[in-house]
């Protein structure tokens, strides 16, 4: 990390500390009023681990307050669920659409995390080029330098991760289509399944997000792309141009518990957790 960026983060930390102190005073009152509530949070797998950490921290500071992180619903599923009142707070990696807005959905971006190409932590590789990645997806490059066969982990074609990979380059767009057409390529339905596959399957490579890798302490590593490491700093500076936006989505009826939790996430304590898990605040 260059010194300029480090300085910017340091400034951010100072501000956060002040904010945490102020918000904690405010929250103590709020938490007291929602102590008996249960907050059900669901959404994109990229942020569930971070939400779990936030929830733990929040619950520790507010005894009796119960937060339940439901298994990955995906962005769309969680927005549906929150609009239906099945969950209280949705965590989405995409903005709401017009129809969802009309149904009463509202959103607030709480951070961004680098979208990464991940491999198992034990793999003797740290960097990859976009061209190499395109060759991998196209089936041209089939082995890692150590001779391990390369095994692509795909996401569903309509998933935002697939679309992001395609956006890397025109060659990768074609490569992804070619990979989707090849038989026997594993398709992970959600972020956690993809991370599981990347950890478990030898030579596996696929999309993930830095927040997931860090918050869930996955035995995975994010590869540098064209020599640029996928750090929040590089992402924030656009040196690493691929990142996921993360939103809190709430329904028409906003509970105090939700307000309290989102406020905590936005508090210095919450932001500290976010930043520590690969999420930077735009």
């Amino acid at each position, binding site marked *: 990390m260059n010194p300029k960026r480090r300085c910017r983060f340091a400034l951010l930390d100072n501000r956060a500390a002040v904010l945490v102190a102020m918000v904690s005073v405010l929250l103590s009152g709020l938490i007291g009023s929602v102590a008996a509530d249960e907050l059900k949070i*669901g959404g994109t797998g990229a942020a569930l681990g971070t939400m779990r950490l936030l929830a733990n921290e929040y619950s520790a500071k507010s005894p009796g307050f119960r937060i339940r992180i*439901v*298994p*990955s*619903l*995906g962005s*769309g*599923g*969680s927005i*549906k*669920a929150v609009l*239906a009142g*099945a*969950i209280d707070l949705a965590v989405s990696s995409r903005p709401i659409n017009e129809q969802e807005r009309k149904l009463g959905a509202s959103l607030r971006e709480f951070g961004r995390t680098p979208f990464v190409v991940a491999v198992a932590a034990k793999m003797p590789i740290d960097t990859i080029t976009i061209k190499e990645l395109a060759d991998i997806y196209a089936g041209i490059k089939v082995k890692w330098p150590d001779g391990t066969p390369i095994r692509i982990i795909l996401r*569903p*074609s*309509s*998933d935002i991760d697939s679309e992001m990979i395609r956006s890397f380059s025109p060659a990768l767009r074609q490569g992804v289509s070619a990979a989707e057409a090849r038989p026997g390529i594993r*398709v992970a*339905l*959600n972020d956690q399944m993809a991370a599981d596959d990347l950890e478990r399957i030898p030579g596996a490579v696929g999309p993930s997000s830095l927040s997931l890798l860090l918050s869930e302490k996955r035995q995975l590593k994010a590869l540098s792309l064209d020599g640029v490491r996928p750090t929040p700093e590089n992402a924030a500076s656009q040196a690493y141009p691929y990142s996921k936006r993360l939103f809190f989505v709430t329904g028409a009826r906003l509970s105090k518990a939700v307000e309290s939790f989102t406020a905590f996430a936005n508090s210095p304590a919450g932001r500290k957790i976010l930043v520590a898990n690969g999420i930077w605040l735009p």
Partner: protein
Amino acid sequence: MSSSPSLHDERLVLGVSRMAGAVACLIILVLPLGYFFLAYKTQAQLLEQLTAIKAEEISSLASENPELWTYQTRRIEDLLLRHKGKEEGQKQTVLDANQHVLLSLGEPPPPPVLRRSYPIYESGRGVGRMELTQSLREDLEGTLVAGILGLLLGGAVYITLRILPLRALRHATQALLGQQQRFVTAIESAMDGYALLDTQGKLLEVNESLSVLTGYSRQELQSLRIADLGAASTANEFIARVTSTHHGRLETRWQRKDGSIIDVEVTATCQAQGSTEIFCFFRDITQKRASEELIWKQANFDMLTQLPNRNMLNDRLAQEIKKSHRANLQLALLFIDLDHFKEVNDTLGHAMGDLLLVEAGQRISACVRETDTVARLGGDEFTVILAGINESEIGTVERIARQILEQLSTPFSLQNEQAQVSASIGITLYPGDASTIQGLFKNADQAMYSAKNQGRNRYCYFTPA
């Protein structure tokens, strides 16, 4: 001669047509029905399997998130799209436990449709249903194509099955008719008569030559039996023999319609045991037989006197020797030479001499029994065989010899001339004098010369020297 019935039997044509039609109909029906049945069965099985697979995957999703799986429609959609089936004309519907549609992919397929559903389970409880609906229109279109193909194939099969056998039949028929025609032509142009008989001898078919041979018209012949043309017993016996041995040959005598008699050679063939038809050919052998008789007569008889010649005499003498030997009887051989015959020839001419020889033969024949043989050996020499003589009848020989001498010494009236001859007779007996033909002739000749030497007009017995 009547023609055989045509082999191009209408019933056969009808039978072949029906068989070809049945096979063609079978193909026309089986091809589209079989196609539809297989296509439907295959589609139903595939759809059922696909529905089950998709339902199982959604069940997994539901198990991971039992309370909220119904909101993961995007992931359900991803799941459904992972197992691509027949996308066009297929509708995929996911329903929750209350039968509310959670997700519906694809347009409603055009009818008729095939629908399969499979439950979505979560911890053993049914929490929804996966339903796949697929159009059978393509199968029906395929069935239509199969039907058209079946129609074409059926038509081709019908044509093949009907035309080829009938063409072969027609060729065979034409070949047979050709053979028949050739047979008819051969039969009709034959010089010999032809008839097809039944086992009763009735004439079923006849040719023109038979009509000419018998003098009867064809129609008349076909109302007759072969026995009506000649000796009935001979004909019936012949028919029976041919029926049992399959062939036969007969020479018989027929009476023609005009009453004239002809000799006929019949050759008959019966195809096989149990056959009711006999093929007969008839040849007029009247002239042939007359020629044969003439030749035989010329070979065995003296043309002048019509008496047996030396050839016949030898034959009869051999037979009489055998008979006498068997019966233990005797025979006498008389060698007769006319005396002074040369003078008759010289004075009256050979024609008169010939007349004398003829009458001399008649006179000698008149002296002997019917069973005896009188032969002319040539010139003025005659020979008589007196056979079947026992001991008590030996005097008969001398009596006949004297009678012959008497008859031959009687003057001959030859037209307007008179001629006088006598005879010298040599007599030898079998088996007393000799037992062979040569011996008997030699003895008789010797005895005849003895009679000549003794003054002619007498007979002498052979006496051994």
